[in-house]
């Protein structure tokens, strides 16, 4: 076996490890989706079409806490903007054009970017990106369906603590991002602003107001 094949197998192995661990989160999204008042079809549609975990949890979370569909959609879109930045980094690395680019865009998420961006060659970058992205897409959609169907049959989501699971899911998504003092300060400030806004604005709006903290901190630091 050549070293090239060996490197390729290593990338596939690492990618599958990450993808299988991540793909099963869909179980919690499915349960949270129906607990937030979406039906099974709407929960599954989010995983199929939106396919970006934090945005999906945000949409379900805002709707579940009484926010309007518009506030839910805006929060999801704002969280989706980071995928645009991933795309900017990945475009020269992957070098896709035409229909390949159109198809690749759907599986452009945190994990496929992470498993691709450090590779030394275009071929290995593509291998990491596609293995991770496609495996997660398949698993995420299957586990969303399983979680949504199971959640719907389990009865009152509050008795099962599923309302608390939404906060835990957001915290678990936030946790690995708190790597610098500026990021931690931004998180604390945004949490305080949101808590204040809860008492004076309609549901769904506090989260959007807190996005202003990111703009402010970004403008004031360098």
């Amino acid at each position: 076996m050549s070293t090239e094949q060996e490197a390729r197998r290593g990338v596939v192995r690492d990618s599958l490890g990450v993808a299988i661990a991540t793909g099963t989160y869909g179980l919690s999204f499915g349960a949270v989706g129906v607990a937030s008042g979406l039906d099974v079809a709407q929960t599954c549609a989010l995983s199929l079409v939106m396919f970006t975990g934090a945005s999906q949890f945000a949409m379900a979370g805002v709707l579940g806490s009484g926010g309007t569909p518009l506030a839910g959609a805006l929060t999801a879109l704002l969280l989706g903007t980071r995928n645009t930045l991933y795309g900017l980094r990945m475009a020269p690395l992957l070098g896709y054009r035409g229909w390949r680019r159109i198809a690749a865009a759907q599986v452009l998420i945190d994990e496929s970017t992470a498993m691709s961006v450090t590779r030394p060659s275009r071929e290995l970058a593509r291998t990491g990106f596609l293995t991770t992205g496609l495996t997660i897409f398949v698993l995420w959609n299957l586990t969303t369906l399983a979680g949504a169907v199971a959640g719907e049959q389990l009865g009152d989501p509050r008795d099962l603590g599923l309302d608390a699971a939404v906060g835990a899911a957001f915290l678990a998504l936030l946790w690995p991002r708190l790597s610098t003092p500026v990021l931690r300060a931004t998180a604390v400030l945004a949490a305080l602003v949101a808590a204040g806004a809860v008492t004076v604005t309609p549901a769904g709006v506090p989260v959007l107001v807190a996005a202003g903290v990111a703009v402010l901190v970004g403008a004031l630091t360098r």
Partner: protein
Amino acid sequence: MIWWAVLGAGVGCYLLKLAGLSVPAKVLGNPLVARIADLIPVALLAALVTVQVLAAPEGRALVLDARLLALGVAVLLLLARAPFLVVVFGSAAAAALVRLL
């Protein structure tokens, strides 16, 4: 209405991904834009944690209930480097248990 929001935001999120793969890098190379884009997920996720855990279900008020205790359990699980599913369902189990008692 919910269907429109689900599909509209879904297609919008896809177009955000496609835009990144299609735009020449220097267009969004502005360091201020990059910095803010880096901070937005952190601010939004922190705000979402707060709202999910502290907002009263009836709206426009903050309450302390089983959800805050469940978040504490989530913090402990994250400190112990537990996997995502264990954090989420462990926290849910804690809230369910407190309400049962």
